[in-house]
């Protein structure tokens, strides 16, 4: 289970970083989302991966660590707000700057390509 879980996190981060480096706002937003999924999974695992343990305190002697779940919840909420903001900002950037590059201007080779 650990191997599967760790590779999931790893693949998500890899895809996220790749998309971030595309330097166009839409892939960047997708990349940020993937990285935040990976981070949430990772945070979740910081309480150790276990099976068949009680979720709520007091229902059994053997229980799962509740704190990482609270942390993940907070991280999800914050990540959601931030993603919403960056989507709006990207749309604004596309309107203001006339292209979707994160620097606000296309590089020379890209411009030639377009012509």
């Amino acid at each position, binding site marked *: 289970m650990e191997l599967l879980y760790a590779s999931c996190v790893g693949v998500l981060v890899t895809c996220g970083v790749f998309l*971030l480096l595309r330097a166009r*706002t839409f892939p*960047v937003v997708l990349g*940020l989302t993937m*990285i*935040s999924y*990976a*981070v949430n999974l*990772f*945070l979740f*695992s*910081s*309480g*150790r991966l276990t099976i068949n343990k009680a979720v709520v305190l007091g229902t059994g002697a053997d229980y799962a660590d509740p*704190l*990482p779940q609270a*942390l993940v919840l*907070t*991280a999800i909420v*914050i*990540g959601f*707000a*931030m993603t919403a*903001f*960056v989507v709006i*900002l*990207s749309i*604004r*950037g596309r309107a*203001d*700057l006339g292209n979707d590059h*994160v*620097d*606000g201007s296309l590089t020379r080779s890209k411009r030639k390509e377009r012509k």
Partner: protein
Amino acid sequence: MIQHLASLPILLPMLAAIILLLPPCGKSLFARRLTSSLMAILTFAVTVLLLVQVKDNGIIVYAIGNWSAPFGIVLVADMLSTLLVTLTAFLGVGVALYGCAGDDEQGSFFHPLIHFLILGVNGAFLTGDLFNVFVFFEVLLIASYALLMHGGGKPKTRAALHYVILNLVGSSVFLIGLGILYGVLGTLNIADMANKVPLLTGDDVYLAKAGGLLLLVVFALKSALLPLHLWLPNAYASATPVVAALFAIMTKVGVYATLRVYTVIFGEQAGELEHMAQSWLWALAIATIVIGAIGVLAAQDLRKLTANLVLVSVGTLVALVALQNINATAALLYYLVHSTLVTAALFLLADLIAIQRGKAGDRLVGGRAVKQPFLLGACFIIAGLTVIGMPPFSGFVGKIWILKTTLNSEQALVFWPVYLIMSLALIVAISRAGTSLFWERKDKTGDGSDVANAHPLQVTVLVGLLVSSILLVVFGDVATQYALEAAAQLHDISGGINAVLKGGM
């Protein structure tokens, strides 16, 4: 009431921001301005009260919801954090008043947003829980994203895209670092972590080291340390100047977090991880000073020059963090207060100069004369001398103190030449800026009759910031004494741990 005092610097700005969003204030500009200024002043008054309380009675630990540490979240008001909270609230009053002069009409929600920003900054300073530091970082960041866009325009959108995306990646790294540390230590309370780090054995040591260094990356991004500083000059120079003045405190949040984490958690008591980040911090800080000084020399306008001055001050502060002794931390505190006030003043001054010079703006080229040469000129000389560190202003005291602290350490061999050459670069750059802004007149046509004098509120805030920086010298004895006590309190790690873990109310 008095036992809840430590929570008020967080609750009051939140209340202020919510009131400002509600109908009576949302509709009337006058009501909005009045409420915002009054609430900012009230927050400042409360923080001063807290400062006096903490100075007299020692650390105040406030357990939220009465859940004692390390299980609940605590607010820890020690001398260091209350000093910074007071500084933030003071800057908040200045920015709220300055905004009332007209800058708040350029976009919506200026006043609520500055209160949200103050809420985030105060929270990050006061909290005793590392995950809560993350939450308050996000609060202040989302307020700052919106404030950076205040006024709109291409340069702002471009700067905001970089700023927002970089910080989102930074937040992810922060969470990964926190996850590793929680997995290893089983706690995120700063005092409790400091307790548990020395007990680590085997592989856990390296995991904790990885987590701790990931945090270093995040704090370096927030405080704009060298390889991660590229967002700062553009963001600060393209933000509305009054917003940039408030941002002057934001890099200091990063410096504060670095100071707290690498002095308390990974400090001298940390066993195998003792002074883990010191060599990194030292090298990067020196490089930041150099890059900042080059940026100051190369700047084409006054706002960019000031933004690079922020970099120089960050470099200096982090170099002092790396030294990790009481004297250096005390010098850091003094210099931190001084540099925040003076860079804020310089951003506001750049705004006034830009308005009065018409088309030339704050670019360092000849243009028409400013309308109020004596007032703005005098302010520029005072601010310039302060930021360079010439006597008799606060920069001089800070600089002498910093040089004296480093004198007997082996690092002086690197630090002194870099620091003194940087000062020379600042003198050259700022005198050149002053010469071209005030004396070089190419455009004789405009007599300035088409621009209004600076609004009395703007002048009051600007003069207030400069006077407070002069007061740092006049009451230098009190200020240095306070800084020394605060530093001693921070470095008394076991005392701090005991206060937090056993003293929760």
